[in-house]
């Protein structure tokens, strides 16, 4: 039960770091990395639920969900990166606010 708690707390902390980073960071790259950290927290939480008391084996459903989730997260992050790169190429801007 102790390891379970460690996973839960870690996932919440990761999620909070990601959420904070998304709002506080200015640079596009930092914002995108923050969303990836958020995703990491959620996936850790989800995959730690595979160890269920009622089952003698690892529950396969969370693994399937996490794999799907990772695919979606990678796609979204790649898309966001390519957008950020295009913005930088056009205007040299790296943040949403106009002043450097």
């Amino acid at each position, binding site marked *: 039960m102790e390891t379970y708690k460690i996973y839960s707390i870690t996932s919440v902390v990761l*999620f909070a770091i*990601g*959420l904070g980073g*998304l709002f506080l960071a200015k640079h*596009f790259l930092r*914002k*995108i990395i923050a*969303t990836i950290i*958020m*995703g990491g*927290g*959620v996936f850790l*939480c*989800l995959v730690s*639920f595979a160890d*269920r008391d*009622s089952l003698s084996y690892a*529950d396969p*459903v*969370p693994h399937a*969900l996490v794999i*799907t*989730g990772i695919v*979606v*997260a990678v*796609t*979204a992050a790649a*898309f*966001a990166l390519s*957008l*950020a790169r*295009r*913005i930088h190429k*056009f*205007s040299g*801007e790296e943040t*949403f606010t106009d002043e450097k």
Partner: protein
Amino acid sequence: MINFPTSSFPALLVALPIFLAILSLIFRINRRAIIGLWGSFLIGILALVSFIEVIQKGTVIHILGGWEPPLGILLRMDPLSAVFIGLTATIGVFISLYTWWYFRAREASKGRFPLFWPLWFFLWAGLNGLFLSNDLFNLYVTIEIITICAVGLAVLSGEKNALKSGLRYLLAAIAGSMAYLFGVALIYGSTGTLDLEHLSEVLKPGKTTNFALIIITLGLMIKKAAFPFHFWLPPAHSAALAPVSALLSALVVKGAFYMMLRLWTEVFEVSLTFAAGQLIGIAGAAAVLWGSWQALLQTNFKLLVAHSSVAQMGYLLMMFPLLIIAPGISSDSANWLSPAWTAGIFQVISHAFAKSSLFLSAGIIIMALGHDRIESLRDLVAWMPMTAMAIGIAGVSLIGLPPSGGFMAKWMLLKGVFLSGQWWWAPAILLGSLLTAGYVFMLLRLAFAPSREINHFRSVPKSLQICALILALGSFLIVIPAENLIQFLEGSESFGSGIQSIVKGGRYGNE
């Protein structure tokens, strides 16, 4: 859930758009538009046929690959989802028609956006999938498909403003979906199931459920641009191409609303309190007032319409506090539930028609003028009477003047508000209508005002103007079958049902 008649239409409604999207990717750019146009007609016909199927048989289901839940995926099409799918198809066909002429009209100078059609079909598949889903994770996947396609469409023009607002939209949406997924993880951890039907039976009230409810609701509120999280919507919707703005405003934000409606009425009954409903209602009222006020201050037509979207989505949120009923009262005796549901559904439909018409008109005006500053709308009535008429009719529906669909929605909302005794929402609804009237009449006043220049409008194909006008008329025509539509919707299990709130601290609220 297994007892319902099986039908293959739910699976086809998702598969056909995906097939068309892949097919259009294979072909060269010239052929894509043809596939796009005929493909959208095909999906429209399919949606119509499946709508008729639901009218005849009631709720139908499809079990994918014969794998029954909880292992497999079950698609459910009840009257409520049939209405949303039908709405998507109706708006979708008209926007496809408009897009076809729109790209042909601007072909010479600016290119034809080859990725529009595949992205639009993937988006359509995602929307249909969302309306048919019956488990939490399926909803997550479909809303992610919708988000990524929507952002892809929003940045299609490749201009700096569109890219920046697209990235902002994408980041906000990723945060929203991560929050939603976190809630799903917690629910799966505490119950071991994702099926909505099953969850409503096994979900127990408690701290985990409360936290999951809060975080899922917050995630969905980011996705549908509810009041404190609306910051991404106006720039993203106004910087996109005209048909894309219409799609985003009319259909994409409705997806998250549908999800929230389903989850609140079917899954989270066990942990909803009176205060939770009030909180959502306050966010809605704030969105109505703030969005309408901001719309009044805009000087660009598209930004005005986008801010008005924030406001009109606020009306949808104000339906939620009415759905929550005191413990011990049965849904049948609470006579305000039916008006509240009618208001919600009609607000969705009439806003979808009116807003897509306004954005398509904005596209026509940009094509005619080269920009969309409001003060150059002068003399619009003389030179483009059809577009002026479309703007007027759609605007009247947004204000909520009879006999438009918007009037029906706002009237029923007011009726629900007074029947339930929650009178404090009425000023926000009325003031919102007044502000809406302010910005619509500001547009119309300019449209009728004489201009010093002689015909500064370039000619725009009539077909584009007809599309916008038909959509605007649609927001009036939906009132005609209103009674039948409500009767049909009552076949859906959740329509007209209330949420029995739990007692917290010995008080329900307004007793």
